């Protein structure tokens, strides 16, 4: 126990110092106030102590509030607002169902305190040479213990207010923690045997999360609530989870290959070598290029030998990043195909469901605005452009010239628009096929307008990403201080798309509004790029 406490204290101290430094760093960047904060602060240990305490308190508060908001948004609000048919006496059971699937199952697969790579771990183990086991085992217990505490007030209170037994709320959290601990051991076991990191495999994650979401919310749509509590709070289940946790903890404590294992997980993000780039880690590894990916012949082929200058550069850029561009496109086409197939099957078995679309094509457009938001490409391409190309070439003055910036903008825009149009066209084609097979009658005019607005949206999102990239240049080499304008514009666009999803009665002119809005945005975006990009497009 002493050992645990000392280790945790040491780790906390390092962590707190880094955090305090970071806070000072951000404070100094504030307009007006920032200039008055002296550099001295970094070395003033008393002031720093105060900053550390404040940061710690704020962090703890943030965690409590975060959990409360999560419970409120994901569980209480849907219960109160969406599923009005669920009656008060069923509230506790419904809450248990939601919490069970969302937090106990889906939440658990996303956490691996032992194996996830993060900044602190990197600093302590790789740079400060902590013993790996001494670091990860205490942090594992601290992580799950604090998580338990952070959840405690919101879960117990909510459960009690909804009419459940307050002690059952406590039991629920204990069981969740037990399950999480045993799952940590399972992940460690899997990683040890197969080198597969479950919390890095998005496919596995989604294969769990989507069924969990469905299992949590779908029954409520049909006014039924599953007897989660009866099973979860039964003695055999409690014993089972307790045994699982005991075995898990024993395995974790007994495991002796931490050094090798943890080093392997930290290597996954080699880019963290550079302190200043640490923040970019997550972004970066998703766009990183590997030399092995390219055969010698392909590098030697001289495929674009005839192209000149910037054309040549851009052609090579897209060629080398083909994997990054093609894979998401194919994924998306596969998704569209699957949805189409499912839609056709549904329409065959439940013709009346498909019949709702009869003469009512515009009513589905709002949902498609939201779909387009998620399905369009751009964000990742821009990051690849930045980290693999622009970040280095912008050091050269020739690359910063106005005409060069604008020309490569156009080339890139064209490319991204084409990619997004492929998706847009696929969606339209899928819709035609569906409408044909399901034998839905519609007005030709509606179909035309629908097509035009989907294509407009494709272009819109392409422009959107590149415009933000060129004008606000949100990615940085340093601590990743993002441009506030970037965040605001991005949020506004997201909210607009999300609001579309909420539209119940779609007005007839909605299609025209979409077309008008996207075209306007495209024009404004392009004008701003021409005006501002030559000045703003820099490595910051």
């Amino acid at each position, binding site marked *: 126990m002493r050992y645990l406490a000392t280790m945790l204290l040491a780790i906390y101290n390092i962590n707190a110092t880094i955090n305090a430094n970071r806070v000072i760093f951000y404070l*100094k960047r504030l307009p007006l106030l920032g200039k008055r904060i*002296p*550099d001295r602060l970094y070395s003033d240990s008393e002031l720093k102590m105060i900053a550390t305490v404040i940061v710690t308190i704020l962090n703890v508060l943030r965690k409590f509030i975060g959990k409360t908001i999560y419970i409120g948004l994901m569980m209480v609000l849907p219960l109160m607002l969406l599923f009005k048919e669920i009656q008060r006496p069923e509230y506790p059971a419904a809450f248990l169902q939601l919490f069970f699937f969302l937090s106990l199952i889906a939440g658990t697969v996303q956490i691996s305190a032992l194996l996830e790579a993060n900044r602190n771990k990197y600093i302590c183990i790789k740079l400060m040479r902590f013993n790996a086991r001494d670091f990860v085992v205490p942090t594992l217990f601290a992580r799950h213990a604090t998580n338990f505490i952070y959840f405690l007030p919101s879960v117990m209170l909510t459960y009690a207010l909804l009419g459940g037994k307050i002690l059952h709320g406590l039991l629920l959290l204990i069981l969740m923690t037990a399950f999480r601990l045993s799952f940590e051991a399972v992940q460690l076991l899997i990683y040890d045997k197969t080198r597969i990191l479950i919390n890095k495999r998005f496919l596995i994650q989604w294969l769990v999360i989507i069924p969990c979401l469905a299992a949590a919310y779908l029954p409520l749509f049909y006014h039924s609530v599953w007897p989660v509590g009866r099973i979860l709070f039964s003695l055999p289940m409690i014993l089972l989870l307790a045994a699982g946790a005991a075995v898990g903890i024993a395995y974790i404590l007994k495991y002796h290959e931490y050094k090798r294992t943890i080093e392997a997980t930290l290597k996954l993000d080699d880019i963290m070598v550079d302190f200043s780039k640490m923040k970019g880690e997550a972004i970066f590894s998703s766009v990183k*290029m590997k*030399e092995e990916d*390219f055969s*010698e012949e392909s*590098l*030697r082929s001289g495929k674009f*030998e005839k192209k*000149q*200058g*910037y054309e*040549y*550069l851009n052609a*090579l*850029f897209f060629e*080398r*990043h083909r994997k990054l561009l093609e894979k998401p496109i194919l994924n998306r086409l596969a998704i569209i195909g699957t949805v189409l197939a499912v839609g056709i099957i549904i329409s065959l078995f439940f013709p009346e469901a498909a019949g709702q679309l009869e003469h009512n094509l515009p009513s589905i457009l709002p949902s498609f605005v939201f779909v387009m938001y998620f399905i369009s490409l751009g964000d990742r391409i821009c990051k690849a452009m930045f980290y*693999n*190309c622009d*970040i*280095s*070439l912008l*050091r*050269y*003055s*020739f690359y*910063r*010239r106005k005409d060069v910036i604008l020309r490569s903008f156009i080339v890139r825009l064209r490319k991204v628009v084409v990619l997004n149009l492929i998706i847009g066209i696929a969606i339209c084609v899928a819709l035609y096929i569906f409408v044909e097979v399901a034998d839905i009658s519609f007005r030709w005019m509606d179909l035309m307008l629908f097509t035009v607005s989907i294509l407009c949206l494709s272009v819109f999102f392409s422009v959107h990403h590149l415009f933000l990239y060129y004008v606000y240049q949100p990615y940085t080499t340093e601590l990743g201080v993002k441009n506030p304008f970037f965040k605001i514009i991005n949020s506004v666009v997201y909210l607009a798309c999300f609001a579309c999803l909420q539209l119940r009665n779609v007005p007839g002119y909605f299609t025209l509004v979409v077309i008008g809005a996207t075209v306007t945005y495209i024009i404004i975006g392009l004008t701003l790029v021409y005006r501002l990009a030559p000045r703003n497009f820099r490595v910051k």
Partner: protein
Amino acid sequence: MGKEKLMKLELKDIKKSFGEKQVLKGAGFTFEQGKIYGLLGRNGAGKTTLFNCLSGDLETDGGEALLLEETEGDGINAVNRLMPESIGYVFTTPILPEFLTGYEFLKFFIDINKGKTRIEKTVDEYFDLMKIEPEDRHRLIKGYSHGMKNKLQMLCFIISRPPVILLDEPLTSFDVIVALEMKKLLREIKKDHIIIFSTHILQLATDLCDEIVVLSNGVLEQVDHEMLHSKEFEEKVIEMLSDGKSMGAESGEQK
């Protein structure tokens, strides 16, 4: 031949601070074409910062950099602000687009300079010049060693031949043979350029450079030319570096 033209790079009162830390405190100096200047300074003296200010990578807080053109007899006949295009800059840590192969990068670089200068060689001839082996030319720059990347950067200014060449500690990463070649090459091209060369190796400075400039306490000072090959030279430089007092050194601004 007509009258000889001579370029000069005049720095006036260049200032730059990071937060409260004043790195350049009004550095001024006049560099002349045809000479290689060795820039000496302790770690953190601001050599890289000075280069970055000149190249436009950093905004200066004050002062200006002018590129003067003199014709013999006529005096100064053109005064221009120093533009980033007139500078070839070799960074300490080479920064190159890593998704290209060395060959592709050079071809690209030659392409974009075609209209501006006469390109004398083919891509492969430039590689030969730098002693980059044929099998390395078609590998991604990502896998290049530090020295190889530096060679590519060197090639950039050899190709584009800008009036001003800034070299931030480049030769340290070269192997013996290439370092010798590079010294030879710099001596060959120096008559057409203003070359400023930062280094920590005193011997390299005395050996290659025509003038030594010391950056200390945020200002530039020249080491007396006479001193350059004298016995006391080393002591002198160390003295200047350690306290920044200008004992016996003539100040660049008064030249």
